[in-house]
């Protein structure tokens, strides 16, 4: 489906933890056509500021419901967190090119999430459910870990890393990934690694995957003016020149990106 601009009703908009919120929208059309890794451009208020839309990745779909999670980090997300159930939001979506995954993935899939990076990966885990992917989740501390129960509910195997060691492996999720790949027998090596998280984490994932000769798919986050390919504001450097994160991405092959 090509992206459309629609007004959708807010089913719920609740704080889940710290500064993180879960937003549920009613849109059968988007729920049916969205694929993991795609995003919505949300006009957080009908009038006034902020001016530009905010891109937020799709966290999941359920029937006609579209779920998003977001962290309140600036004026846009702050205004969004004030929007209430029953109100309508002007959105454009679904946008962008999501994760590539076959119906029967070759080899195991590993998902690596850092912080809010769980957002698109839970949606992917749902689609990969029969293959029971391994999910590595990293956060600053136990308190900041998100969506553990949801991943478990999809039958995913989980491994956790926290910077302060308050849960799971003490250290970066990428260190955990590297160790895991080193210890893995060749036959058990994953066919695909999917990752979403802060830029330094994605850079590390790309490097580790290159070292182990495994292909990676990374979901990037950038400021955008339009979100649908017109402004050329969100470009990222790749081996074949600048590419738009909103159009050719937000998911890119790790080996294609120039860091």
């Amino acid at each position, binding site marked *: 489906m*090509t*992206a*459309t*601009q629609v007004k959708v009703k807010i089913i719920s908009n609740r704080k889940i933890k710290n500064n993180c919120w879960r937003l549920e929208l009613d849109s059968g059309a988007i729920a049916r056509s969205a694929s993991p890794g795609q995003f919505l451009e949300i*006009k957080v208020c009908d009038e006034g*500021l*902020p*001016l*530009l*839309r905010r891109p937020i990745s799709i966290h999941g779909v359920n029937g006609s419901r579209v779920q998003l999670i977001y962290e309140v980090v600036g004026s846009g997300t702050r205004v969004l967190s004030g929007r209430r159930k029953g109100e309508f939001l*002007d959105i*454009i979506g679904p946008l962008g090119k999501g994760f590539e995954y076959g119906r029967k993935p070759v080899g195991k899939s590993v998902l690596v999430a850092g912080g809010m990076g769980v957002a698109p990966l839970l949606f992917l885990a749902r689609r990969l459910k029969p293959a029971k992917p391994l999910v590595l989740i990293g956060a600053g501390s136990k308190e900041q870990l998100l969506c553990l129960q949801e991943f478990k509910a999809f039958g995913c195997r989980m491994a956790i890393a926290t910077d302060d060691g308050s849960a799971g492996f003490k250290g970066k999720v990428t260190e955990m990934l590297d160790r895991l790949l080193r210890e893995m027998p060749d036959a058990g090596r994953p066919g695909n690694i999917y990752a979403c998280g802060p830029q330094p984490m994605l850079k590390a994932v790309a490097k580790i995957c290159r070292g182990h000769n495994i292909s990676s798919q990374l979901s990037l986050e*950038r*400021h*955008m*003016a*339009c979100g*649908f*390919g*017109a*402004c*050329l*504001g*969100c*470009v*990222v*450097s790749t081996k074949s*020149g*600048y590419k738009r994160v909103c159009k050719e991405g937000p998911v890119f092959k790790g080996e294609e990106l120039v860091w």
Partner: protein
Amino acid sequence: MVKKPKPDLRVEIGSCILENPVMVASGTFGYAEEFKGFMDLRKLGAIVTKTITVKPRSGNLPPRTCETPSGMLNSVGLENPGIGSFIKEKIPFLEDLSIPIIVSIASEDKPDEFLVLAELLDRIKAVSAIELNISCPNIKKDRLISQDASETFNLVKAVRGITGKCLITKLSPNVTSVPEIALAAQEAGSEAVALVNTFIGMSIDIHKRASRINSLVGGLSGPAIRPLAVRMVWEVYNKIKVPIIGMGGIMDIESAIEFVLAGATAVSTGTANFIDPAISLGIVSGLRKHMEDNNIADLREIRGKLKICAD
């Protein structure tokens, strides 16, 4: 009761006849294809393409955009596929729309590149007009052509000499006197002027103590610049005879009419296209309704007809 006449939205920009006065500003509408899923492109007054250069240009280093109070800064740096690819890959789509297509062009190093571009575009039937972008703030130059009246005159004159297409000159607001440059463009044979391009601005992230865009300075657009742009349109309107295409933070029907009252013959949406991709068509229908409601048969009746506010 006398039946009200149906408003006539047509306007003339030099030799171009537009079915309505609502256009889209260069650089904010890609090559139109990007917007086809959101609207019926054929209902636009005209389309101005993203600026084309002779050679492909990769543009500036990211980050290239950031939001600012009621506006945005950009430093895209004229990323474009170059004239060869543009003609081959973008013109066929634009041609099928059967509305006036205005191609924006710019030079990278030497002004002569404008002549090369104009000569190539002169042969293409689908191209109704050429817009001379002599005012992009995002290319590394000490001074823009549009910041000097005699350079503007010489360039427009040179391009005028090699093409019969309608010529529009896009002016910079980053000057002491826009009318002075507009006059130079008119005298050299420009059939219209488009104003304004973006204002040079900066935005700083205090936590990183760094500029929000990689190029340090960029072009400011959006509602933040609207009063400045309206003032410049008014100043130019009082000095020149050729039509003005007014732009700068037009977000709705009210702001579009504001530019007409200041003297614009046509208006362009810019930043608004990024937020509400079909906004220009909303402005077309809003304009028609405003004309009907106010018994305006032709926009000429209100163009430049602003009054002084009195108590």
